[in-house]
């Protein structure tokens, strides 16, 4: 299907050039990285930009690196690159795990982690892993750089805190100082295409702290301070995991749509929470560092 309207295209050679374009065009410009969401949004007329700013010439954004005690994931890092990164496996295993469940290899070769949190569709796979890792979104504009905790980043379905003259340069994940283990669970109809009908991410720390995030069961993915506090007070064990499961009904607000009913989403979120918690407990036992 052809895209039924016209727009311009620029491929800036430097980040400064990209920021100048954004400064001039504002909300009429849209950043193009992998394009797997954007092409669909334009075909559907959900977005009608006047200019696409293709950032794929900005090699500096294509890096996964550790800097200042944080794992940096640049705006051009694809899910395929995440799957092949030992740094991600070592420091944010749950992101590696989630990346392997994103659509299919043909999409993972193109789609980016940063694009995923900029499209901010409620069912995105990156959000829960980034939420439990207290990740930070780094934006840039001509006015300077900003750091936004990923907890605050999502405003509504498909809406984020990105400013109209800003782009996201990278996300950073603070390296946990103590032993930790995460687990990601995704409910879908079949492998190879599907968006999450619900997803759960958990991160367990050696000192007993536990972080829990739910996705696709509300307008935005969110952490659950209720469950985290419950584990902080009571500790993590099989009985408490079961009790925490029963709290989920009051925490998430799934809807019925083409992919699942709200009842099924609710039920499966509880099942996946228990599975993720047990997986994380087991993984933590095996962790060396």
């Amino acid at each position: 299907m052809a895209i039924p309207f016209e727009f311009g295209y620029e491929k800036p050679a430097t980040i400064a050039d990209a920021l100048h374009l954004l400064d001039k065009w504002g909300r009429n410009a849209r950043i193009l990285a992998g394009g797997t969401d954007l092409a669909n949004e334009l075909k559907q007329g959900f977005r009608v930009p006047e200019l696409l700013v293709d950032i794929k010439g900005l090699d500096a954004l294509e890096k996964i690196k550790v800097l200042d005690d944080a794992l940096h994931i640049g705006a051009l890092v694809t899910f395929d690159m995440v799957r092949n990164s030992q740094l991600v496996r070592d420091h944010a295993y749950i992101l590696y795990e989630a990346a392997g469940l994103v659509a299919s290899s043909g999409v993972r070769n193109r789609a980016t982690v940063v694009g995923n949190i900029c499209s901010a569709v409620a069912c995105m796979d990156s959000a829960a892993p980034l939420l439990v890792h207290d990740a930070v979104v780094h934006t840039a504009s001509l006015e300077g750089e900003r750091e936004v905790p990923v907890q605050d980043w999502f405003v509504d379905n498909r809406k984020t805190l990105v400013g109209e003259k800003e782009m996201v340069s990278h996300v950073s994940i603070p390296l946990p100082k103590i032993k930790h283990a995460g687990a990601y669970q995704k409910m879908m109809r079949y492998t190879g295409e599907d968006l999450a009908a619900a997803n759960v991410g958990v991160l367990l720390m050696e000192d007993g702290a536990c972080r829990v995030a739910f996705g696709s069961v509300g307008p935005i993915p969110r952490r659950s301070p209720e469950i985290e506090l419950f584990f902080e007070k009571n500790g993590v064990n099989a009985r408490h995991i079961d009790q925490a499961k029963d709290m989920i009904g009051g925490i998430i607000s799934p809807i019925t749509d083409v992919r699942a009913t709200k009842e099924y989403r609710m039920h499966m979120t509880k099942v996946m929470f228990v599975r993720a918690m047990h997986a994380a407990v087991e993984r933590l036992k095996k962790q060396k560092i």
Partner: protein
Amino acid sequence: MKKISFTLNGELRQVDVAPNEILLEVLRYKIGVKSPKCGCDTGDCGACTVILNGKAVRSCLIFAIEINGQEIVTLEGLSKDGLTPLQKALLDRNAFQCGYCAPGMILSATCLMSGNPHPSEEEIKESIAGNLCRCTGYQPVIDAISEVTKKH
């Protein structure tokens, strides 16, 4: 309109494209390469798969203007010098019925094999998980990929 140059199946091509033109449509209707198919047009079905700089991608989700200076391989390029061993194995097994998914399936499997000459059955299934087929039930396709990756 902007003139873009790219390598298509080993040959340098130049074509005028507007920014709103999708790669799949430019390949099929401006250049006449018909192996990439339009199935779902949303990146789910894999019928439009092409190899871009060595990686299988969805040509229905790529703006043609993005591939300026890049390298594209389609099924036509793959079988320039006759059928590949994988294609022969698929043919021997009658692995496809309507054939609509075949180009994408073959390109996805070819990409897998280029980076991983001896994949496990799980890896084979994962590589074609995004290529939907409504005829075969997938098993003969998986068998054919297994056969040629065991031989080599």
